[in-house]
């Protein structure tokens, strides 16, 4: 959250274009295809430890909410690490993809193994998962002060969900299985300078919503629709092209520290 660590129990200020104060309701995302990159540019896939909880095949769930405070629908456990093995090497960079790989994204969520069976991350109407879920509720008090309206009733506090996942999916007419998605919305993340023994990856919500008006969207925030202007800056900060759903340069959500 800018320079502050994330908690479910405190509001964050100066978010988005209107510099609003907001409480966060959820903060989770899937990554896959984690690779370390050698000095001479070769990739070494990280073989994830199969812990039957956070990691399955080549997918890991990172989970910063702990069900306290405003994160009512989350899980108590948190996970801030991806655990796995690589051969010894001179590694200077990190690459991974944000999301669930296509082959695992469209199965039966009710019977999928952990961490693909958390209903808070189901995205059934799009036949997949929310790759990234980070929901905020803008504080009414701050809004009213901005509007110079101390006494008026401005209705329920506006929620600004960010749900990133594959859209435009097509089902097989006979068995209903998803055959493709016109916009996979899987971001390719590269941290060119990353020392796995010293650095950590910082995931910054403030950077994600920089340039976005968090009181816009009518409570729908950004749901990955290419028609949704509210998604424009968010997709840019994820390193995704909103129109095509393909990776693009310029992500700002992740950085090495």
């Amino acid at each position, binding site marked *: 959250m800018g320079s502050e660590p994330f908690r479910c129990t405190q509001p964050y200020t100066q978010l988005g274009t209107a510099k609003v104060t907001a409480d966060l309701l959820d903060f989770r995302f899937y990554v896959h295809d984690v690779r370390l990159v050698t000095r001479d540019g070769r990739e070494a896939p990280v073989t994830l430890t199969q812990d039957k909880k956070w990691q399955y095949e080549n997918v890991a769930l990172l989970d910063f909410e702990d069900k306290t405070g405003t994160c*009512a*629908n989350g*899980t108590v456990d948190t996970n801030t690490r991806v655990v796995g093995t690589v051969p010894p090497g001179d590694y200077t960079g990190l690459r991974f993809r944000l999301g669930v790989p296509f082959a695992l994204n469209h199965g039966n969520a009710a019977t999928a193994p952990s961490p693909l*069976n*958390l*209903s808070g991350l*189901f995205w059934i*109407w799009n036949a997949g998962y929310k790759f990234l879920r980070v929901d905020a509720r803008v504080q009414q008090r701050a809004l009213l002060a901005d509007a110079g309206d101390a006494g008026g009733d401005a209705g329920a506090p506006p929620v600004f969900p960010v749900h990133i996942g594959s859209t435009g999916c097509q089902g097989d007419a006979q068995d*209903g299985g998803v055959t493709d998605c016109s916009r996979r919305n899987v971001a390719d993340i590269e941290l060119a300078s990353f020392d796995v023994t010293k650095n950590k990856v910082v995931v910054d919500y403030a950077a994600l919503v920089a340039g976005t008006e968090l009181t816009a969207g009518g409570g729908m925030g950004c749901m990955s*629709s290419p028609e949704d202007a509210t998604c424009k800056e968010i997709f840019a900060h994820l390193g995704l092209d909103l129109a095509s759903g393909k990776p693009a340069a310029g992500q700002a959500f992740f950085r090495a520290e």
Partner: protein
Amino acid sequence: MKRALPALPALATAFAASAVAWLGCGGSSSSPSDSKPKEYEWKLPQGFPVPKVPEDNPMSQDKVDLGRHLFYDTRLSGNGTYSCSSCHVQEKAFTDGRRRALGSTNETHPRGSMSLTNVAYATTLAWANDLLTSLEKQTMVPMFGETPVELGLAGQEAQMLERLRAEPYYPAAFARAFPGDPEPFTTQRVVQAISAFERTMISGQSPYDRFAFQGDKNAISESAKRGRDLFFSETLECFHCHGNFNFSDSISHSGSAFTETMFHNTGLYNIDGKGAFPPDNVGLMEISHKDSDMGRFKAPTLRNIAVTAPYMHDGSVSTLEEALDHYAAAGRTITTGPYAGNGSKSPLKSDLVVGFVITAEQKADVIHFLESLTDTEFLHDPRFSNPWTAGERP
């Protein structure tokens, strides 16, 4: 999830499975084996095919009984106030009479609650989502969906299962419904049982059925008979989308070799002259993001249509008279407000919504025909009613 079956064996497997389903579900006791679980008896109306049943969720009376209890159980909502039946009321053919549904947390849904009449035959569920191809998939939407919140169970599946486990009726009922499963208290089993119950909601005992399929030529009025002829005429064109025994064009059953899935723009809106619908209800385009899918919704069954007002996906048509006016005008014209526009001029409109001229008497005839599709027995059948007795939940 990861299957890599070569094409030929996969085909052979599917073929064998459907053959078994056909024999088994027909109710004839042709099975040579005594050890097989008791077949589910469909008790289908005259002229109705056997529904298609997913291979991994075979029907049984015990599963249907369990599903019925779950369907009416408010433990299936996050705040304990709602069940499936809150939006799907039997007397209204499992709709709720609202223009747009209201979820357990008072959030208004963009669309109205759909009738569950003959839902076993639907090839896609919901108003416009070609990815929801089975009840098992669809059931998870009201349970876990958050935009909008319906039952409000997202992130609460463990608590829900704990609540169910604590109800004295359920342990034995889950065990009977899923014999051999050491841990049947799972989301998957809940979804399967509810889906099995919903598949039994078959309506085919209306006056029209007695007239058309059971040889009772006096079961419907002369006016309704004239209305029937108009309905099936090339003048009104109704039957193209609302044809066959279920009066819906997107159906399949155990004898279907193909799965038909259709969506239509009927010119209900044309906000920008290019066919735009209101932004919260763009139809199949919400799923596909294809411009050409703007305003395409599925043609729901017309069975019990007289008790499921208001009409259309957003409840914006109040009566059957109004619905007929819409089709007669080849699309609705809205003169004022943010959604003003001439639907009949929509470039995205279905070729079959061409308009027609009928007299007031003919209009009454068509409505009498539609009313003859009301199956009173279905609306009061104790098999579909709330099984929880007074004093129990809900």
